[in-house]
Protein backbone atom coordinates (compact mmCIF):
# COMPACT_ATOMS: atom_id res chain seq x y z
CA UNK A 1 0.00 0.00 0.00
CA UNK A 2 1.56 3.27 -1.11
CA UNK A 3 -0.54 5.74 0.92
CA UNK A 4 -0.19 5.14 4.66
CA UNK A 5 -2.98 6.19 6.97
CA UNK A 6 -2.07 9.29 9.08
CA UNK A 7 -2.70 7.32 12.35
CA UNK A 8 -0.27 4.57 11.39
CA UNK A 9 2.35 7.15 10.49
CA UNK A 10 2.28 8.66 13.99
CA UNK A 11 2.18 5.17 15.52
CA UNK A 12 5.24 4.25 13.51
CA UNK A 13 6.99 7.50 14.53
CA UNK A 14 6.54 6.71 18.24
CA UNK A 15 7.90 3.20 17.78
CA UNK A 16 10.99 4.12 15.76
CA UNK A 17 14.12 4.22 17.93
CA UNK A 18 12.52 2.30 20.84
CA UNK A 19 13.97 -1.04 21.96
CA UNK A 20 12.13 -4.22 21.06
CA UNK A 21 11.83 -7.14 23.48
CA UNK A 22 10.11 -10.51 23.08
CA UNK A 23 6.77 -10.38 24.97
CA UNK A 24 7.26 -12.27 28.31
CA UNK A 25 5.46 -15.58 29.02
CA UNK A 26 3.90 -14.22 32.22
CA UNK A 27 2.59 -10.72 31.50
CA UNK A 28 2.26 -9.27 35.05
CA UNK A 29 5.73 -8.32 36.36
CA UNK A 30 4.88 -8.92 40.07
CA UNK A 31 3.52 -12.41 39.29
CA UNK A 32 6.62 -13.17 37.22
CA UNK A 33 8.88 -12.25 40.19
CA UNK A 34 6.77 -14.13 42.77
CA UNK A 35 6.83 -17.29 40.64
CA UNK A 36 10.57 -17.04 39.99
CA UNK A 37 11.62 -16.28 43.58
CA UNK A 38 9.14 -18.81 45.00
CA UNK A 39 10.67 -21.57 42.88
CA UNK A 40 14.23 -20.69 43.95
CA UNK A 41 13.17 -20.56 47.64
CA UNK A 42 11.51 -23.97 47.30
CA UNK A 43 14.63 -25.48 45.69
CA UNK A 44 16.89 -24.18 48.50
CA UNK A 45 14.48 -25.47 51.17
CA UNK A 46 14.27 -28.83 49.42
CA UNK A 47 18.07 -29.27 49.24
CA UNK A 48 18.40 -28.33 52.92
CA UNK A 49 16.13 -31.25 53.95
CA UNK A 50 18.52 -33.83 52.43
CA UNK A 51 20.53 -35.24 55.33
CA UNK A 52 24.03 -36.49 54.61
CA UNK A 53 25.82 -38.60 57.20
CA UNK A 54 29.40 -37.78 56.18
CA UNK A 55 31.07 -40.29 58.52
CA UNK A 56 28.87 -43.06 57.06
CA UNK A 57 29.83 -41.97 53.56
CA UNK A 58 33.50 -42.14 54.56
CA UNK A 59 33.13 -45.73 55.75
CA UNK A 60 31.07 -46.63 52.69
CA UNK A 61 33.73 -45.38 50.30
CA UNK A 62 35.74 -48.48 51.15
CA UNK A 63 32.95 -50.87 50.14
CA UNK A 64 32.29 -48.85 47.04
CA UNK A 65 35.97 -49.11 46.13
CA UNK A 66 35.84 -52.90 46.60
CA UNK A 67 32.85 -53.09 44.31
CA UNK A 68 34.51 -51.00 41.62
CA UNK A 69 37.82 -52.84 41.96
CA UNK A 70 35.99 -56.11 41.41
CA UNK A 71 35.42 -54.98 37.81
CA UNK A 72 39.17 -55.10 37.22
CA UNK A 73 39.13 -58.82 38.04
CA UNK A 74 35.67 -60.13 37.09
CA UNK A 75 35.26 -63.81 37.86
CA UNK A 76 33.42 -65.54 35.03
CA UNK A 77 34.59 -69.07 35.88
CA UNK A 78 33.73 -70.09 39.46
CA UNK A 79 29.96 -69.60 39.02
CA UNK A 80 29.87 -70.02 35.23
CA UNK A 81 27.15 -72.68 35.35
CA UNK A 82 24.84 -70.36 37.33
CA UNK A 83 25.64 -67.37 35.13
CA UNK A 84 24.95 -69.33 31.93
CA UNK A 85 21.64 -70.71 33.20
CA UNK A 86 20.58 -67.28 34.46
CA UNK A 87 21.46 -65.58 31.16
CA UNK A 88 19.60 -68.20 29.09
CA UNK A 89 16.57 -67.85 31.34
CA UNK A 90 16.69 -64.04 31.04
CA UNK A 91 17.01 -64.12 27.26
CA UNK A 92 14.15 -66.60 26.86
CA UNK A 93 12.00 -64.55 29.22
CA UNK A 94 12.84 -61.30 27.40
CA UNK A 95 12.18 -62.58 23.88
CA UNK A 96 9.01 -64.45 24.81
CA UNK A 97 7.60 -61.53 26.80
CA UNK A 98 8.52 -58.98 24.12
CA UNK A 99 6.84 -60.97 21.32
CA UNK A 100 3.65 -61.56 23.31
CA UNK A 101 3.62 -58.00 24.65
CA UNK A 102 4.12 -56.43 21.21
CA UNK A 103 1.46 -58.67 19.64
CA UNK A 104 -1.08 -57.55 22.25
CA UNK A 105 0.08 -53.91 22.10
CA UNK A 106 -0.73 -53.46 18.41
CA UNK A 107 -4.53 -53.86 18.62
CA UNK A 108 -4.60 -51.90 21.89
CA UNK A 109 -2.48 -49.16 20.31
CA UNK A 110 -4.91 -48.93 17.38
CA UNK A 111 -7.79 -48.69 19.84
CA UNK A 112 -6.02 -46.04 21.90
CA UNK A 113 -5.56 -43.66 18.92
CA UNK A 114 -8.35 -41.09 19.02
CA UNK A 115 -8.28 -40.39 15.28
CA UNK A 116 -9.13 -43.95 14.27
CA UNK A 117 -10.99 -45.52 17.21
CA UNK A 118 -14.58 -44.79 18.31
CA UNK A 119 -14.85 -43.22 21.76
CA UNK A 120 -15.87 -46.33 23.81
CA UNK A 121 -13.01 -48.41 22.35
CA UNK A 122 -10.65 -45.50 22.91
CA UNK A 123 -11.65 -45.22 26.59
CA UNK A 124 -11.20 -48.95 27.22
CA UNK A 125 -7.80 -49.10 25.50
CA UNK A 126 -6.54 -45.94 27.22
CA UNK A 127 -7.73 -47.50 30.50
CA UNK A 128 -5.65 -50.63 29.87
CA UNK A 129 -2.64 -48.47 29.01
CA UNK A 130 -3.10 -46.37 32.15
CA UNK A 131 -3.31 -49.43 34.43
CA UNK A 132 -0.26 -51.02 32.85
CA UNK A 133 1.75 -47.82 33.18
CA UNK A 134 0.60 -47.06 36.72
CA UNK A 135 1.81 -50.41 38.08
CA UNK A 136 5.58 -50.48 38.29
CA UNK A 137 7.24 -53.72 37.11
CA UNK A 138 8.51 -54.65 40.58
CA UNK A 139 5.05 -54.35 42.13
CA UNK A 140 3.52 -56.47 39.36
CA UNK A 141 6.34 -59.01 39.72
CA UNK A 142 5.79 -59.33 43.49
CA UNK A 143 2.08 -59.95 42.88
CA UNK A 144 2.72 -62.46 40.10
CA UNK A 145 5.40 -64.29 42.07
CA UNK A 146 2.77 -64.67 44.79
CA UNK A 147 0.38 -66.16 42.20
CA UNK A 148 2.70 -68.30 40.04
CA UNK A 149 5.50 -68.96 42.54
CA UNK A 150 9.22 -68.25 42.10
CA UNK A 151 10.67 -68.56 38.61
CA UNK A 152 10.68 -67.09 35.13
CA UNK A 153 6.94 -67.59 34.45
CA UNK A 154 6.13 -64.66 36.77
CA UNK A 155 8.86 -62.62 35.08
CA UNK A 156 7.46 -63.45 31.65
CA UNK A 157 3.97 -62.22 32.58
CA UNK A 158 5.35 -59.11 34.27
CA UNK A 159 7.37 -58.06 31.23
CA UNK A 160 4.50 -58.79 28.81
CA UNK A 161 2.19 -56.65 30.90
CA UNK A 162 4.70 -53.79 31.13
CA UNK A 163 5.36 -53.93 27.38
CA UNK A 164 1.66 -53.34 26.65
CA UNK A 165 1.56 -50.08 28.58
CA UNK A 166 4.73 -48.77 26.99
CA UNK A 167 4.25 -49.80 23.38
CA UNK A 168 0.48 -49.21 23.06
CA UNK A 169 0.79 -45.67 24.35
CA UNK A 170 3.66 -44.68 22.07
CA UNK A 171 2.15 -46.47 19.05
CA UNK A 172 -1.18 -44.71 19.64
CA UNK A 173 0.60 -41.36 19.82
CA UNK A 174 2.39 -42.06 16.54
CA UNK A 175 -0.91 -42.99 14.88
CA UNK A 176 -2.49 -39.80 16.20
CA UNK A 177 0.24 -37.70 14.60
CA UNK A 178 0.17 -39.47 11.22
CA UNK A 179 -0.59 -37.69 7.94
CA UNK A 180 -4.37 -37.76 7.60
CA UNK A 181 -4.48 -37.26 3.86
CA UNK A 182 -2.65 -40.51 3.06
CA UNK A 183 -5.16 -42.46 5.13
CA UNK A 184 -8.03 -40.47 3.64
CA UNK A 185 -6.94 -41.36 0.11
CA UNK A 186 -7.05 -45.07 0.94
CA UNK A 187 -10.48 -44.69 2.50
CA UNK A 188 -11.76 -42.90 -0.60
CA UNK A 189 -10.94 -45.94 -2.74
CA UNK A 190 -13.59 -47.99 -0.92
CA UNK A 191 -11.15 -50.00 1.20
CA UNK A 192 -12.38 -52.06 4.17
CA UNK A 193 -11.27 -51.08 7.66
CA UNK A 194 -8.49 -53.69 7.82
CA UNK A 195 -7.26 -52.73 4.34
CA UNK A 196 -7.33 -49.10 5.36
CA UNK A 197 -5.15 -49.87 8.39
CA UNK A 198 -2.80 -52.03 6.30
CA UNK A 199 -2.34 -49.50 3.47
CA UNK A 200 -3.12 -46.09 4.98
CA UNK A 201 -1.87 -46.33 8.56
CA UNK A 202 0.67 -49.16 8.87
CA UNK A 203 3.25 -47.81 6.38
CA UNK A 204 3.25 -44.50 8.23
CA UNK A 205 3.90 -45.94 11.70
CA UNK A 206 6.00 -49.02 10.84
CA UNK A 207 9.48 -47.50 11.34
CA UNK A 208 8.49 -46.13 14.72
CA UNK A 209 6.83 -49.40 15.71
CA UNK A 210 9.98 -51.36 14.86
CA UNK A 211 12.21 -48.85 16.64
CA UNK A 212 10.02 -48.93 19.76
CA UNK A 213 9.87 -52.73 19.71
CA UNK A 214 13.66 -52.96 19.61
CA UNK A 215 13.90 -50.41 22.41
CA UNK A 216 11.38 -52.36 24.47
CA UNK A 217 13.32 -55.59 23.89
CA UNK A 218 16.33 -53.79 25.32
CA UNK A 219 14.34 -52.49 28.33
CA UNK A 220 12.85 -55.94 28.96
CA UNK A 221 16.31 -57.47 29.08
CA UNK A 222 17.52 -54.91 31.62
CA UNK A 223 14.29 -55.33 33.63
CA UNK A 224 14.79 -59.09 33.65
CA UNK A 225 17.98 -58.50 35.62
CA UNK A 226 16.00 -56.54 38.25
CA UNK A 227 13.03 -58.90 38.43
CA UNK A 228 15.30 -61.69 39.74
CA UNK A 229 15.69 -59.65 42.93
CA UNK A 230 12.02 -60.31 43.80
CA UNK A 231 12.17 -63.95 42.73
CA UNK A 232 10.85 -63.68 39.19
CA UNK A 233 13.72 -65.65 37.67
CA UNK A 234 16.45 -64.77 35.17
CA UNK A 235 19.98 -63.42 35.59
CA UNK A 236 18.75 -61.17 38.40
CA UNK A 237 18.42 -64.17 40.69
CA UNK A 238 22.05 -65.12 40.01
CA UNK A 239 23.14 -61.53 40.52
CA UNK A 240 21.24 -61.33 43.79
CA UNK A 241 22.87 -64.50 45.07
CA UNK A 242 26.31 -63.14 44.15
CA UNK A 243 25.68 -59.94 46.14
CA UNK A 244 24.33 -61.90 49.09
CA UNK A 245 27.56 -63.90 49.21
CA UNK A 246 29.66 -60.73 48.83
CA UNK A 247 31.11 -62.26 45.62
CA UNK A 248 31.61 -58.89 43.96
CA UNK A 249 33.90 -60.39 41.31
CA UNK A 250 31.13 -62.74 40.13
CA UNK A 251 28.60 -59.88 40.32
CA UNK A 252 30.97 -57.78 38.22
CA UNK A 253 31.16 -60.57 35.63
CA UNK A 254 27.35 -60.69 35.44
CA UNK A 255 27.05 -56.92 35.10
CA UNK A 256 29.66 -56.89 32.32
CA UNK A 257 27.70 -59.55 30.42
CA UNK A 258 24.48 -57.54 30.85
CA UNK A 259 26.20 -54.40 29.55
CA UNK A 260 27.56 -56.28 26.53
CA UNK A 261 24.15 -57.76 25.68
CA UNK A 262 22.49 -54.32 25.96
CA UNK A 263 25.16 -52.79 23.72
CA UNK A 264 24.71 -55.58 21.19
CA UNK A 265 20.95 -54.99 21.19
CA UNK A 266 21.48 -51.26 20.73
CA UNK A 267 23.77 -51.89 17.76
CA UNK A 268 21.30 -54.34 16.22
CA UNK A 269 18.36 -51.95 16.63
CA UNK A 270 20.39 -49.20 14.95
CA UNK A 271 20.97 -51.42 11.91
CA UNK A 272 17.31 -52.49 11.72
CA UNK A 273 15.96 -48.95 12.10
CA UNK A 274 18.24 -47.66 9.36
CA UNK A 275 16.92 -50.39 7.06
CA UNK A 276 13.21 -49.68 7.56
CA UNK A 277 13.23 -45.87 7.56
Amino acid at each position, binding site marked *: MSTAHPDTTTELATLLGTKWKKPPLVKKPWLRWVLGLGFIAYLIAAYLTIEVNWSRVYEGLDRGAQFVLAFTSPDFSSRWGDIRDGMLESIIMTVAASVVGIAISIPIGLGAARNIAPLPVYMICRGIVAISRALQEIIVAILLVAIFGFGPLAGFFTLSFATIGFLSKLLAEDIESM*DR*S*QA*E*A*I*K*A*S*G*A*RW*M*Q*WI*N*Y*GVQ*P*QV*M*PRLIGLSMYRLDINFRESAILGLVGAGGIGATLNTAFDRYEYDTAAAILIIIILVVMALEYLSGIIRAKVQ
Partner: protein
Amino acid sequence: MPNGRFCDGAARNDKNKAGGAFMLRLEKLVKTYKTGDMALKAVDLEVPQGQVMALIGPSGAGKSTLIRCINRLVEPTSGNVHLADVELTGLSAGALRRERRRMGMIFQEYALVERLTVMENVLSGRLGYVGFWRSFLRRYPQPDVDEAFRLLDRVGLLAMADKRADELSGGQRQRVGIARALIQNPALLLVDEPTASLDPKTSRQIMRLICELCAERGLAAIINIHDVALAQMFVQRVIGLRFGAVEFDGPPDGLTPDVLTTIYGEEDWEATIEKVEDEDEVAAQ
Protein backbone atom coordinates in the same frame (compact mmCIF):
# COMPACT_ATOMS: atom_id res chain seq x y z
CA MET B 1 -7.34 -28.76 -30.39
CA PRO B 2 -7.06 -25.03 -29.71
CA ASN B 3 -7.14 -23.54 -26.22
CA GLY B 4 -6.92 -26.90 -24.57
CA ARG B 5 -10.62 -27.76 -24.20
CA PHE B 6 -10.34 -31.41 -25.06
CA CYS B 7 -13.38 -32.51 -23.24
CA ASP B 8 -16.21 -30.70 -25.03
CA GLY B 9 -16.81 -33.17 -27.82
CA ALA B 10 -16.85 -36.31 -25.75
CA ALA B 11 -19.11 -34.74 -23.19
CA ARG B 12 -21.67 -33.53 -25.67
CA ASN B 13 -21.80 -36.92 -27.37
CA ASP B 14 -22.33 -38.68 -24.08
CA LYS B 15 -24.94 -36.21 -23.03
CA ASN B 16 -26.83 -36.69 -26.28
CA LYS B 17 -26.61 -40.46 -26.09
CA ALA B 18 -27.90 -40.56 -22.54
CA GLY B 19 -30.55 -37.96 -23.24
CA GLY B 20 -29.21 -35.49 -20.68
CA ALA B 21 -28.67 -38.12 -17.98
CA PHE B 22 -26.82 -36.81 -14.96
CA MET B 23 -23.87 -38.55 -13.34
CA LEU B 24 -24.17 -36.66 -10.10
CA ARG B 25 -27.01 -34.67 -8.58
CA LEU B 26 -26.82 -32.75 -5.33
CA GLU B 27 -30.06 -31.67 -3.69
CA LYS B 28 -30.08 -29.03 -0.96
CA LEU B 29 -26.75 -30.28 0.35
CA VAL B 30 -25.97 -28.70 3.72
CA LYS B 31 -22.88 -29.11 5.87
CA THR B 32 -22.68 -27.47 9.27
CA TYR B 33 -19.50 -28.14 11.23
CA LYS B 34 -19.55 -28.73 14.99
CA THR B 35 -18.09 -25.26 15.44
CA GLY B 36 -21.31 -23.88 13.93
CA ASP B 37 -19.72 -22.88 10.62
CA MET B 38 -22.17 -23.45 7.80
CA ALA B 39 -19.77 -24.66 5.10
CA LEU B 40 -22.46 -25.51 2.55
CA LYS B 41 -25.83 -23.77 2.34
CA ALA B 42 -28.32 -25.94 0.44
CA VAL B 43 -26.23 -26.52 -2.68
CA ASP B 44 -28.13 -27.83 -5.72
CA LEU B 45 -26.01 -29.09 -8.57
CA GLU B 46 -26.24 -31.49 -11.49
CA VAL B 47 -23.26 -32.83 -13.38
CA PRO B 48 -24.04 -34.64 -16.66
CA GLN B 49 -22.13 -37.72 -17.72
CA GLY B 50 -18.72 -36.91 -19.12
CA GLN B 51 -18.72 -33.25 -18.09
CA VAL B 52 -15.55 -31.75 -16.67
CA MET B 53 -16.45 -28.98 -14.29
CA ALA B 54 -14.30 -26.59 -12.29
CA LEU B 55 -15.26 -25.46 -8.82
CA ILE B 56 -13.73 -22.08 -8.01
CA GLY B 57 -14.07 -19.77 -5.05
CA PRO B 58 -12.06 -18.17 -2.25
CA SER B 59 -10.40 -20.22 0.49
CA GLY B 60 -13.02 -21.30 2.97
CA ALA B 61 -15.86 -21.10 0.44
CA GLY B 62 -16.60 -24.80 0.97
CA LYS B 63 -15.00 -26.32 -2.15
CA SER B 64 -13.16 -29.09 -0.31
CA THR B 65 -16.16 -29.74 1.90
CA LEU B 66 -18.39 -30.03 -1.16
CA ILE B 67 -16.40 -32.76 -2.87
CA ARG B 68 -15.78 -34.59 0.41
CA CYS B 69 -19.53 -34.58 1.11
CA ILE B 70 -20.06 -36.38 -2.19
CA ASN B 71 -18.06 -39.49 -1.21
CA ARG B 72 -18.84 -38.88 2.47
CA LEU B 73 -15.29 -38.46 3.68
CA VAL B 74 -17.12 -35.57 5.32
CA GLU B 75 -20.62 -36.50 6.45
CA PRO B 76 -23.20 -34.03 5.05
CA THR B 77 -25.62 -32.56 7.62
CA SER B 78 -28.65 -32.77 5.34
CA GLY B 79 -29.63 -33.03 1.70
CA ASN B 80 -29.15 -35.74 -0.90
CA VAL B 81 -26.37 -36.90 -3.17
CA HIS B 82 -27.34 -39.04 -6.16
CA LEU B 83 -24.57 -40.87 -8.01
CA ALA B 84 -26.38 -41.88 -11.20
CA ASP B 85 -29.29 -43.90 -9.73
CA VAL B 86 -27.96 -44.41 -6.18
CA GLU B 87 -28.66 -42.06 -3.26
CA LEU B 88 -25.47 -41.92 -1.18
CA THR B 89 -26.31 -40.11 2.05
CA GLY B 90 -28.53 -42.91 3.39
CA LEU B 91 -26.17 -45.79 2.60
CA SER B 92 -24.83 -48.25 5.17
CA ALA B 93 -21.05 -48.43 5.64
CA GLY B 94 -20.75 -51.48 3.38
CA ALA B 95 -22.88 -50.05 0.59
CA LEU B 96 -21.03 -46.73 0.81
CA ARG B 97 -17.73 -48.58 0.36
CA ARG B 98 -19.03 -50.20 -2.82
CA GLU B 99 -20.22 -46.84 -4.18
CA ARG B 100 -16.89 -45.18 -3.34
CA ARG B 101 -15.31 -47.48 -5.92
CA ARG B 102 -17.21 -45.54 -8.59
CA MET B 103 -15.75 -42.22 -7.40
CA GLY B 104 -12.04 -41.75 -7.98
CA MET B 105 -10.40 -39.02 -5.94
CA ILE B 106 -7.30 -36.99 -6.73
CA PHE B 107 -5.81 -34.93 -3.91
CA GLN B 108 -4.00 -31.75 -3.18
CA GLU B 109 -0.40 -32.62 -2.20
CA TYR B 110 -1.04 -36.01 -3.91
CA ALA B 111 -1.81 -37.97 -0.69
CA LEU B 112 0.24 -40.95 -1.86
CA VAL B 113 1.25 -43.37 0.87
CA GLU B 114 4.86 -42.25 0.98
CA ARG B 115 6.49 -45.44 2.19
CA LEU B 116 4.72 -47.71 -0.29
CA THR B 117 5.98 -48.31 -3.81
CA VAL B 118 4.43 -46.61 -6.83
CA MET B 119 2.84 -49.92 -7.83
CA GLU B 120 1.33 -50.45 -4.37
CA ASN B 121 -0.06 -46.94 -4.48
CA VAL B 122 -1.68 -47.54 -7.86
CA LEU B 123 -3.01 -50.96 -6.84
CA SER B 124 -4.46 -49.47 -3.65
CA GLY B 125 -7.14 -48.07 -5.97
CA ARG B 126 -8.37 -51.68 -6.30
CA LEU B 127 -8.80 -52.18 -2.54
CA GLY B 128 -12.56 -51.84 -2.85
CA TYR B 129 -12.61 -54.83 -5.22
CA VAL B 130 -10.20 -57.32 -3.64
CA GLY B 131 -10.38 -59.20 -0.34
CA PHE B 132 -8.23 -58.41 2.68
CA TRP B 133 -5.76 -61.28 2.37
CA ARG B 134 -5.11 -60.67 -1.31
CA SER B 135 -4.38 -57.01 -0.59
CA PHE B 136 -2.39 -57.83 2.54
CA LEU B 137 -0.16 -60.29 0.64
CA ARG B 138 -0.05 -57.93 -2.38
CA ARG B 139 -1.36 -60.77 -4.58
CA TYR B 140 -3.64 -58.79 -6.85
CA PRO B 141 -5.57 -60.49 -9.68
CA GLN B 142 -3.55 -60.45 -12.92
CA PRO B 143 -6.03 -58.15 -14.76
CA ASP B 144 -5.56 -55.56 -11.98
CA VAL B 145 -1.79 -55.80 -12.23
CA ASP B 146 -1.94 -55.50 -16.03
CA GLU B 147 -4.22 -52.47 -15.76
CA ALA B 148 -1.84 -50.87 -13.25
CA PHE B 149 1.05 -51.31 -15.70
CA ARG B 150 -1.09 -49.91 -18.54
CA LEU B 151 -2.04 -46.84 -16.50
CA LEU B 152 1.53 -46.24 -15.37
CA ASP B 153 2.56 -46.44 -19.02
CA ARG B 154 -0.22 -44.00 -19.95
CA VAL B 155 0.95 -41.44 -17.38
CA GLY B 156 4.58 -42.04 -18.38
CA LEU B 157 5.85 -43.66 -15.18
CA LEU B 158 6.20 -47.32 -16.11
CA ALA B 159 9.91 -47.26 -15.24
CA MET B 160 9.09 -45.99 -11.73
CA ALA B 161 6.79 -48.90 -10.76
CA ASP B 162 9.05 -50.24 -8.00
CA LYS B 163 10.31 -46.90 -6.70
CA ARG B 164 9.01 -45.69 -3.37
CA ALA B 165 6.44 -42.90 -3.72
CA ASP B 166 8.57 -40.44 -1.72
CA GLU B 167 11.36 -40.70 -4.30
CA LEU B 168 9.23 -39.03 -7.00
CA SER B 169 8.92 -35.35 -7.92
CA GLY B 170 5.67 -33.44 -7.40
CA GLY B 171 4.42 -33.84 -10.94
CA GLN B 172 5.29 -37.53 -10.98
CA ARG B 173 3.48 -38.06 -7.69
CA GLN B 174 0.33 -36.46 -9.00
CA ARG B 175 0.51 -38.75 -12.05
CA VAL B 176 0.58 -41.72 -9.69
CA GLY B 177 -2.39 -40.17 -7.88
CA ILE B 178 -4.24 -39.99 -11.19
CA ALA B 179 -3.43 -43.63 -12.01
CA ARG B 180 -4.63 -44.66 -8.53
CA ALA B 181 -7.95 -42.89 -9.07
CA LEU B 182 -8.45 -44.32 -12.55
CA ILE B 183 -7.70 -47.96 -11.69
CA GLN B 184 -10.89 -47.85 -9.61
CA ASN B 185 -12.68 -47.69 -12.96
CA PRO B 186 -14.73 -44.77 -11.70
CA ALA B 187 -17.65 -42.98 -13.29
CA LEU B 188 -16.86 -39.72 -11.55
CA LEU B 189 -13.61 -38.05 -10.58
CA LEU B 190 -13.43 -35.83 -7.52
CA VAL B 191 -10.35 -33.67 -7.86
CA ASP B 192 -9.21 -31.47 -4.99
CA GLU B 193 -6.69 -28.74 -5.92
CA PRO B 194 -4.64 -31.03 -8.21
CA THR B 195 -2.10 -28.35 -9.05
CA ALA B 196 -1.81 -26.48 -5.76
CA SER B 197 1.85 -27.29 -5.18
CA LEU B 198 3.06 -27.62 -8.77
CA ASP B 199 4.89 -25.18 -11.03
CA PRO B 200 2.89 -23.52 -13.84
CA LYS B 201 4.09 -25.84 -16.59
CA THR B 202 3.55 -29.05 -14.59
CA SER B 203 0.16 -27.68 -13.52
CA ARG B 204 -0.95 -27.42 -17.12
CA GLN B 205 0.40 -30.86 -17.94
CA ILE B 206 -1.51 -32.37 -15.03
CA MET B 207 -4.74 -30.57 -15.91
CA ARG B 208 -4.36 -31.60 -19.54
CA LEU B 209 -3.75 -35.20 -18.53
CA ILE B 210 -6.82 -35.27 -16.28
CA CYS B 211 -9.01 -33.78 -19.01
CA GLU B 212 -7.66 -36.11 -21.70
CA LEU B 213 -8.28 -39.15 -19.54
CA CYS B 214 -11.80 -37.94 -18.73
CA ALA B 215 -12.50 -37.57 -22.44
CA GLU B 216 -11.01 -40.99 -23.27
CA ARG B 217 -13.12 -42.70 -20.65
CA GLY B 218 -16.21 -40.49 -20.71
CA LEU B 219 -15.77 -39.54 -17.05
CA ALA B 220 -17.45 -36.69 -15.30
CA ALA B 221 -15.16 -34.66 -13.04
CA ILE B 222 -15.42 -31.95 -10.44
CA ILE B 223 -12.13 -30.10 -10.10
CA ASN B 224 -11.53 -27.74 -7.19
CA ILE B 225 -9.07 -25.18 -8.37
CA HIS B 226 -7.68 -21.83 -7.26
CA ASP B 227 -6.11 -20.88 -10.57
CA VAL B 228 -9.00 -19.31 -12.49
CA ALA B 229 -7.01 -18.90 -15.70
CA LEU B 230 -5.96 -22.55 -15.65
CA ALA B 231 -9.54 -23.65 -15.07
CA GLN B 232 -10.74 -21.55 -18.00
CA MET B 233 -8.24 -23.23 -20.30
CA PHE B 234 -9.45 -26.76 -19.69
CA VAL B 235 -13.02 -27.10 -18.47
CA GLN B 236 -16.45 -26.78 -20.06
CA ARG B 237 -18.29 -25.43 -17.07
CA VAL B 238 -17.40 -23.38 -14.03
CA ILE B 239 -19.19 -23.22 -10.69
CA GLY B 240 -18.31 -20.30 -8.44
CA LEU B 241 -18.78 -20.94 -4.75
CA ARG B 242 -18.86 -18.20 -2.10
CA PHE B 243 -19.73 -18.72 1.58
CA GLY B 244 -21.07 -22.18 0.79
CA ALA B 245 -23.51 -21.09 -1.91
CA VAL B 246 -23.34 -21.26 -5.71
CA GLU B 247 -22.80 -17.73 -7.03
CA PHE B 248 -21.99 -18.57 -10.63
CA ASP B 249 -22.77 -21.48 -12.93
CA GLY B 250 -21.84 -21.13 -16.57
CA PRO B 251 -19.26 -21.55 -19.31
CA PRO B 252 -15.66 -20.44 -18.66
CA ASP B 253 -16.12 -17.45 -21.01
CA GLY B 254 -18.79 -16.14 -18.65
CA LEU B 255 -16.22 -15.28 -15.98
CA THR B 256 -16.21 -11.49 -16.39
CA PRO B 257 -14.59 -9.11 -13.90
CA ASP B 258 -18.05 -8.53 -12.39
CA VAL B 259 -18.59 -12.24 -11.89
CA LEU B 260 -15.15 -12.70 -10.32
CA THR B 261 -15.90 -9.79 -7.99
CA THR B 262 -19.12 -11.52 -6.91
CA ILE B 263 -17.22 -14.73 -6.19
CA TYR B 264 -13.99 -13.44 -4.69
CA GLY B 265 -14.64 -9.82 -3.76
CA GLU B 266 -13.31 -6.52 -5.10
CA GLU B 267 -9.99 -6.74 -7.00
CA ASP B 268 -8.60 -5.79 -10.37
CA TRP B 269 -9.50 -8.79 -12.53
CA GLU B 270 -8.45 -7.49 -15.95
CA ALA B 271 -4.99 -9.02 -15.69
CA THR B 272 -6.34 -12.50 -14.87
CA ILE B 273 -8.71 -12.48 -17.80
CA GLU B 274 -6.24 -10.90 -20.23
CA LYS B 275 -3.74 -13.59 -19.39
CA VAL B 276 -6.19 -16.25 -20.47
CA GLU B 277 -6.94 -14.48 -23.73
CA ASP B 278 -3.23 -14.17 -24.47
CA GLU B 279 -2.75 -17.83 -23.80
CA ASP B 280 -5.68 -18.65 -26.05
CA GLU B 281 -4.06 -16.70 -28.87
CA VAL B 282 -0.74 -18.43 -28.34
CA ALA B 283 -2.43 -21.81 -28.29
CA ALA B 284 -4.39 -21.00 -31.44
CA GLN B 285 -1.29 -20.09 -33.42
